[in-house]
């Protein structure tokens, strides 16, 4: 045993036990680091990638004011409208299966040129005899269109409280920016409405 330690000691400057512990600690650091990366790193990273590529159409780039002025044509003549390729924008509104509300777009689809601002309303109705809270989550297809569908006013990701029996119109104002790839003929904007009512006590 002694001879062994001696030889190792001659071979390595640090006594093996200390060296082992040092390596153990740094490897444990890697383990903890990867765990932290998985929980606190990957979801934000994924969201950033989604934002960049429009993957899954989850995050919709909010329009800044400069964006709007640069991109939006205030006046579009009929001639321009004729010349320009129109993009078909479809709207879908769904509720999650256990959500009793009704939720529909007032217009199923609209054809519009890039740069033109458009207002769309959605009707949401709470048929139950209880006050409830809903929240709509958007999704856009195809993914390449996500970055170019700019919303000026939107109700998504916002909690919508509705009283028993109440009906309300939710407004979406958006435009398609000029960088919209020309090979996308149709863009679908789908909302899914989820029940966010906190279970009341009793």
């Amino acid at each position, binding site marked *: *045993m002694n*001879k*062994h330690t001696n*030889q*190792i000691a*001659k*071979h*390595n400057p640090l006594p*093996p036990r200390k*060296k*082992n512990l040092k*390596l*153990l600690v740094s*490897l*444990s650091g*890697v*383990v*903890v*680091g*990867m*765990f932290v*990366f*998985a*929980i606190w790193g*990957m*979801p934000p990273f*994924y969201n950033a990638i*989604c934002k960049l*590529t*429009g*993957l*899954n159409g*989850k995050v919709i780039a909010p329009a800044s004011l400069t964006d709007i002025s640069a991109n939006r044509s205030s006046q579009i003549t009929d001639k321009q409208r004729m010349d320009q390729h129109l993009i078909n924008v479809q709207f879908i509104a769904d509720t*999650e299966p256990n959500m009793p509300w009704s939720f529909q777009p007032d217009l199923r689809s609209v054809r519009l040129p890039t740069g033109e601002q458009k207002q769309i309303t959605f009707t949401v109705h709470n048929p139950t005899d209880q006050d409830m809270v809903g*929240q709509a*989550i958007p999704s856009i297809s195809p*993914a*390449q269109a996500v970055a170019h569908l700019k919303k000026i006013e939107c109700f998504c*990701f916002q909690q919508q409280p509705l009283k028993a029996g109440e009906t309300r119109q939710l407004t979406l104002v958006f435009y398609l920016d000029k960088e919209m790839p020309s090979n996308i003929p149709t863009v679908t904007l789908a909302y*899914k409405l*989820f029940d*966010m009512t906190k279970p009341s006590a009793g």
Partner: protein
Amino acid sequence: MSDHHPTGFSRWLFTTNHKDIGSMYLIFSFAMFLTGGFMAMVIRAELMYPGLQLIDPNFFNQMTTTHGLIMVFGAVMPAFVGLANWMIPMMIGAPDMALPRMNNWSFWILPFAFAILIGSIVVAAFGGGSAPNFGWTFYAPLSTKYGPPSTDFFIFSVHLMGISSIMGAINVIVTIFNMRAPGMTFMRMPLFVWTWLITAFLLIAVMPVLAGAVTMMLMDRHFGTSFFDAAGGGDPVLFQHVFWFFGHPEVYIMILPSFGIISAILPTFARKPLFGYPSMVYATASIAFLSFVVWAHHMFTVGLPLAGNLFFMYMTMLIAVPTGVKVFNWVATMWQGSMTFEVPMLFSIAFVVLFTIGGLSGLMLAITPADQQYQDSYFVVAHFHYVLVSGAIFGIMAGVYYWLPKWTGVMFNETLAKAHFWCSLVMVNLLFFPMHFVGLAGMQRRIPDYPLQFADLNFWISIGGFGFGLSQLLLLAVVWQACIQRKGKKATAQVWESAEGLEWTLPSPAPYHSFSTPPFIKAATH
């Protein structure tokens, strides 16, 4: 202190000896292999004929889920850790593993982890609730919002398995870094040590990610977060990214040590040095590196953007290059050799052939447009069983037969072992080869029942399944005779005629404490 050691139960409970712990890992792994195999046979019994004959679809899903989990985390990975424990110190001339007490803990966590998992399926088998039923990939939201209550036990169990694997991996790295005998430079290490070193790095990089995935699941289920739930702004697809970021390196964790075993066995029985040792090391390292950038090839149908699909397709195809190098090196090692065909060699040759078939079907799966048809079909099932059963597990069996005389000091019953080999070889192909074709014809994975067009082949697949399962009883018999009854001719120190490496310089059976005095390595031993 030469061969003195405690006896009885406390020897096994408190042991810090790498050979004892290695044996326990191997026994545990074999028990899990039989358990998971029994589940596979229940699955095949249900699928033998169309219609539901034996179990209901929910229980069928529990069977596929626990079969996958037990085979991956209970059979293949602990078998490799067991072989590492036994062989790495002996191969690098170390007296034991670097962190013996941690070694003991990392083993004894496993029985508890699997008791939890198997407990839930045993309870379910008697009609009490549902065990995890969402597949071994446990995609959200099937495993979160829609998971049975036992999912929480499953999460706990996966955490334990992860901790055990991480401790095992750290131990391997520390041992290899700090405990090599003088003269045992990195480029003189046997390939089994090399492949295990790389595997251990993969393990400490990705097991925490798996732990992260199940932790996020737990938080989604009970603490109101929405990592994987669209309702709260999360995304179920994120789960798949996290899972496969773990899952793809995991696939290589389950094959790299087998590469090392085959690279030890082929030169011995070809009586010729391993061809291209440095390129083998570099190929292993590149496979490990590439495994981190191919994960989304499991997700070609979730709707990735074109650029993503292209990137992951190219990266996946690229893995074929280092894998090809390995196969060519093995063939070149056999070329112009002086071969004999003892049982370890038989398993190794079967490994090279069948793993290559699995690799080639993997290359087909990499082609994204064709994958639109392959994805989630039995073609995929055939592919990963070729690489995991006739790949990883045949590699483990080759290693067990190769080193068994060194462990026990007696030559095992070769007649019985050959019977085991031939039965396994024929049955494994009857079991998995036709799966390619039912998959191509459109049979999807994880179904308890199928349209009539798939009936003929499924019958034969089931026959193969029962045959392969029963063949493993022969392995049990061989190991029983050699280890318990100690029947057989006394093995020499070298055991096999031209086996080379430090482990063959020790007497057979290897003494309880080996290399208390480190040997000095002058020349390459591979």
